């Protein structure tokens, strides 16, 4: 019997522990609650439909009855003892009626130009959804683990404005960063922030193609470069859901530009096995902005908007001369095969590739994309569908 078989045999002798029953019950109850909320009709109070209908009818009748009165008020009076209404009074009546009709009949058209805003009511709804999170129903959870998470479907919701997403992610990240990172984070919070989030400096200033698109807050049509680029995007870019949205709106996230050293733009796609190409790339995510967190815990790295500027991705110098890199590990089920498919305020984990298991020969032969982040020049290698973040030589 080989040592491997013997190990399996010994390991197999260990008892099969089973999930505790109270945890099972709590999780199942939370799942049932979530499913019930999903299946519940939008109008959970049937009487509210009737009430709304009645209110609408009353308003409609009231306006209909009032219309002849208004006409009499604004018409010239035949008798000298009846003063003719002043123009200002007539305008007042018209405005009042217009306001009433508008309040009754006009649908909520929303902000102009199709922009979606999040008002106070929306925030309240989001807060209440958070409060109803299944996590609240679970017992015996440590205070640190009791972070309520609102069930949000990114399929049906339009992403909030970038600033709100970043704020939300900041709050989330703050609760997750470990104790050892707190000191570094505190230093970062105290230090002046050099640049606003999501506006990386141009990688090579003389080459306009390498400049990342700043977040202007303007709709897509206001950016002729993006508008012109979208129809010519390769099929593989268009088929990506998030990328489609990025291209249809504006380039605020994902890979901004990829160019060869001569400045010629390259496709944004990276296919495993394609011939090696040295390229330069600017990259941005709304949650990453221009800062990064390096928690240096458990061999992985978390990127966020918290922390000291210029804190991320700089590998420590090594005395043995070995190269240190970090494997990009998307979390929460994101598929590494499409490196651009990050949803909203995503989290990317960088896993140290130091160690004998990293196949350097295979990764080094694959395309390398440079990534500028907070002044640290790093490289992205495509390895079997993964992006490998690696320290490379400084750009000229």
């Amino acid at each position, binding site marked *: 019997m080989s040592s491997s078989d013997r190990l399996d045999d010994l390991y197999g002798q260990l008892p099969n522990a089973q999930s505790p029953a109270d945890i099972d019950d709590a999780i199942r109850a939370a799942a049932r609650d979530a499913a019930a909320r999903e299946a519940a009709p939008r109008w959970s109070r049937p009487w509210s439909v009737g009430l709304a209908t009645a209110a609408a009818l009353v308003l409609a009748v009231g306006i209909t009855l009032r219309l002849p009165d208004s006409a009499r008020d604004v018409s010239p009076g035949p008798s000298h003892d009846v003063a003719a209404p002043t123009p200002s009074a007539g305008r007042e009546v018209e405005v009042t009626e217009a306001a009433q009709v508008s309040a009754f009949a006009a649908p909520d058209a929303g902000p102009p130009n199709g922009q979606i805003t999040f008002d106070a009511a929306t925030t309240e709804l989001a807060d209440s959804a958070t409060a109803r999170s299944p996590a609240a129903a679970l017992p015996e959870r440590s205070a640190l683990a009791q972070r309520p998470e609102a069930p949000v479907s990114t399929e049906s919701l339009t992403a909030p404005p970038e600033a709100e997403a970043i704020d939300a992610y900041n709050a989330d990240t703050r609760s997750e960063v470990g104790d050892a990172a707190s000191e570094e984070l505190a230093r970062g919070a105290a230090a002046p922030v050099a640049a606003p989030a999501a506006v990386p400096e141009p990688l090579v200033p003389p080459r306009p193609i390498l400049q990342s698109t700043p977040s202007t807050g303007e709709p897509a049509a206001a950016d002729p470069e993006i508008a012109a680029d979208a129809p010519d995007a390769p099929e593989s870019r268009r088929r990506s859901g998030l990328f489609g949205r990025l291209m249809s709106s504006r380039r605020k996230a994902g890979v901004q530009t990829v160019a060869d050293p001569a400045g010629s733009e390259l496709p944004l796609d990276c296919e495993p096995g394609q011939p090696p190409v040295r390229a330069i790339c600017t990259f941005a995510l709304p949650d990453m902005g221009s800062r990064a967190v390096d928690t240096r815990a458990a061999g992985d790295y978390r990127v966020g908007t918290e922390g000291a500027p210029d804190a991320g991705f700089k590998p420590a110098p090594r005395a043995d001369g070995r190269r240190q890199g970090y*494997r990009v590990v998307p*979390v929460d089920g994101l598929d590494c095969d499409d490196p651009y498919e990050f949803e909203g305020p995503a989290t990317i984990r960088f896993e140290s590739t130091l160690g004998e298991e990293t196949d350097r020969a295979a990764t080094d032969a694959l395309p390398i994309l440079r990534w500028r982040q907070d002044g640290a020049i790093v490289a992205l290698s495509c390895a079997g569908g993964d992006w490998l973040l690696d320290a490379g030589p400084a750009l000229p």
Partner: protein
Amino acid sequence: MQAIEADDDELMARYVSGDAAAFDALYGRYKDRTWRYFLRQLGEERARDAQQDAWLKIVDRRAQYRPQGRFAAYLFSVARSVLVDAQRKTMTLVEQTLDTDELPAAGAGEPRRAARLERLAAAISAALGRLPIDQRDAFVMQQEAGLSYADIATATGASVETVKSRLRYARGKLADALAQEMHDVEF
């Protein structure tokens, strides 16, 4: 019965559409695997929190699941993120603990076997705790969750070749460690 025969993707789709029984079936399939995955690496107390966190993420993000016939890989990618978060919170890698209370009660005639099992559990616990996290993660996913190389690769964000390499190193180190701990066991 229908829920038992349905595949994972079908159960997940039914749960997304509001069928809580589908989740029960899905949870029944995987709950012990995720539990042992956490238990072996976090110990019982933190495994309880991790088990809840992982499955609540599955619940909360059910609408984002893309059915590709690889629910186990998806589930353990979520579990792994929870595991790493849990380890980050304490900033220490806690040695895997195996509660010897779980060991089957020894019969009157087999005290030697019970003692051997207890010793084996302690040895495996110590050996697992000394493995690098990636190797231990891959090993536990394979042993406790029965994941394939491809599913482990998806769950950990590594290539299949890297997973094979990690497993090879993990098994070698574990075998060496157990051989030293248990002199009467042949390797």
